[in-house]
């Protein structure tokens, strides 16, 4: 059976998020983008409305919706601005879903529940100044000391770095063991020795929070270790399966934003006595944007469906992320072309779309990394092995009961 329909619940949840961003994010986004600041009201409102826990079971403080709804929500968020989708990528995709997948029951109560309720914000500490795609090159270390670990290191390009209360931090407990020596910890940013700061001068996501986090002799209880020692790399990669899903669905929203803006402008703007939408070369751009939107949406919805079913979706999510982010950049580029000189100015949104789209081609796996992954699957050099803890399939009864 093949069914492309979405439920009323899924559509209503997406519609509610659309209403929120249209009323509370969009009106000030240009102002905050220009100021390179995050609107201080946005995160608390996302928390209050339950968006920060949309697909976490009600018993852990969430709203009990499925993974497909998470994708639809991210699409609506980034249709308005990438910065609000980025919040979901790190807070939900990279951190909360990691705890849902790998955390003990006690850790779910301690970390996941306040995160899903929006009482605590969450970030993901993998990238370092000298380690991005090459995760095993990380320099962060965690040394066991009795019932604690002593963590040292610095993380860079961390979304919500100065806002988050919990950071899923990856450090080497066995520096000689390469990626097999990496372990995951939940670092609480009020622990002594943790310092944070914002990064300025970014090309895009200027109304978001991106920064660095440093740990100097931070004493973290062993109870904060997520998973087993040496399991950190697998945890990080599984978190990326979820983070990339939110990036893919968000980029799909960005394509839609480009298309909506271009459709409107091309029917209003006249040259040589007629709307530019009557010209075939403009129509071609619109048609391509529609094609990119449809394809991206189908790719991410399939990945979301696989998550619901409890199927491993690393390859499908990677494909969705690669395709949607590459094409959101192309869509923004074409949208600016349709808008002409006005598109080059921040009077219109499309220049912001272009700046915002660029980062997602780099973070959470560059497009080149995703191409290598796809080739690896094709050539048989890459195979997904079963994990000790798989992302739980969506079970409405478990998710929705108190």
């Amino acid at each position: 059976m093949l069914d492309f329909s979405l439920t009323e619940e899924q559509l209503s949840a997406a519609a509610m998020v659309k209403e929120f961003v249209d009323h509370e994010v969009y009106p000030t986004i240009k102002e905050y983008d220009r100021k390179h600041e995050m609107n201080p009201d946005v995160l608390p409102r996302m928390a209050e409305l339950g968006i920060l826990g949309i697909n976490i079971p009600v018993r852990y403080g969430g709203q009990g919706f499925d993974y497909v709804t998470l994708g639809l929500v991210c699409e609506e968020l980034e249709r308005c601005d990438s910065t609000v989708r980025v919040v979901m990528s790190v807070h939900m995709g990279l951190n909360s879903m990691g705890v849902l997948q790998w955390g003990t029951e006690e850790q779910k109560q301690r970390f996941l529940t306040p995160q899903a309720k929006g009482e605590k914000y969450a970030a993901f500490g993998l990238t370092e100044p000298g380690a991005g795609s090459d995760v095993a090159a990380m320099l962060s270390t965690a040394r066991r000391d009795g019932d604690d670990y002593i963590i040292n290191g610095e993380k860079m390009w961390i979304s919500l770095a100065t806002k988050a209360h919990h950071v899923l931090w990856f450090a080497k407990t066995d520096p000689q063991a390469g990626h097999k020596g990496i372990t995951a910890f939940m670092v609480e940013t009020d622990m002594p020795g943790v310092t944070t700061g914002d990064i300025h001068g970014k090309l895009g996501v200027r109304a978001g929070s991106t920064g660095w986090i440093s740990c100097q002799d931070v004493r973290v209880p062993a109870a904060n270790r997520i998973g087993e020692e040496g399991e950190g790399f697998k945890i990080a990669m599984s978190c990326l399966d979820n983070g990339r899903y939110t990036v893919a669905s968000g980029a799909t929203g960005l394509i839609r934003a480009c298309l909506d803006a271009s459709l409107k402008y091309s029917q209003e703007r006249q040259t040589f006595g007629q709307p530019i939408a009557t010209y075939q070369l403009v129509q071609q751009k619109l048609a391509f944007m529609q094609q990119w939107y449809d394809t991206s949406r189908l790719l991410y919805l399939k990945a979301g469906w696989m998550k619901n079913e409890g199927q491993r979706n690393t390859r499908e999510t990677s494909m969705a992320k690669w395709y949607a982010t590459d094409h959101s950049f192309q869509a923004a580029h074409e949208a600016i072309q349709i808008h002409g000189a006005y598109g080059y100015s921040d009077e219109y949104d499309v220049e912001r779309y272009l700046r915002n789209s660029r980062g997602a081609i780099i973070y959470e796996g560059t497009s080149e990394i995703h191409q290598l992954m796809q080739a690896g699957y094709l050539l048989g050099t890459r195979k997904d092995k079963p994990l000790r803890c798989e992302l739980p399939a969506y079970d409405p009864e478990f998710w929705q009961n108190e």
Partner: protein
Amino acid sequence: MKVVVCTKQTPSTTAVFSVNNGVVSWDDPGGKPNVVNPWDEYAIEEGIRLKENHGAADVIALSIGGEDSKEALKTALAMGCTDAMLVSDDAFAGSDAVGNARVWAAAINQLGDVQIAIFGKLTIDDNMGAAAMLTARKLGWTPLTFVSAIKEVGNGSITVERLLDDGKETVTAPLPVVINVVKEINEPRYPSFMGIRKANRATIPVLTGSDLNVDGATGAAASKVDWSQVFPIPPREGSVEMIAGDSVEEQVEILVDKLFEEKVI
């Protein structure tokens, strides 16, 4: 205390209308063609606040219309109304404002022991704004219109602030009452995620004319309003000139000069 919020599914504010051979149709590309009447959102919000702040036990969303009106009722449930009811009967189709008021009144009576019925200021499809007053007349209750705040409810009375053209007035009336509310009364909340789930699982009871004791004639035959000719508004003639300039100030200067030239200012 039982509160009824009267709501209607209307075309969205961004819908694009067309008229062909006297038949009106509309669509909202990229959006939903029909939504809960925007003015009713304030009524729904106030009903929910009566539950939260004034101890109303039941806040029932009520609508008259076809099956698609259930969408408006689901929105009301998702926002926080406790129950919903739809009145749907082909015999009511084409009713004028008086006919509709007869149905509203009969449905409110059917619910029993209602103390407050709330309407939005008007519905955006016909823009008449008469429903609250006509329904109050049919029920024999006090109408309180253009309410911008509910100050007090208790001991069999309600005190409200009314927003008038030349100021505000505070009035007290014995319950039951029919009120209509203006947008200054509150800021409507969004549907909650939990509310969305509850609403989508709710079975909304549908009543027909035979379930109600409607006093008076309804339907197109009884309507005093004759839609004998419907035609689109002729498009406005005009042209758009984009004002170019290096700065907003320069653009404004050019605009002001042109407005002077055209003797607009």
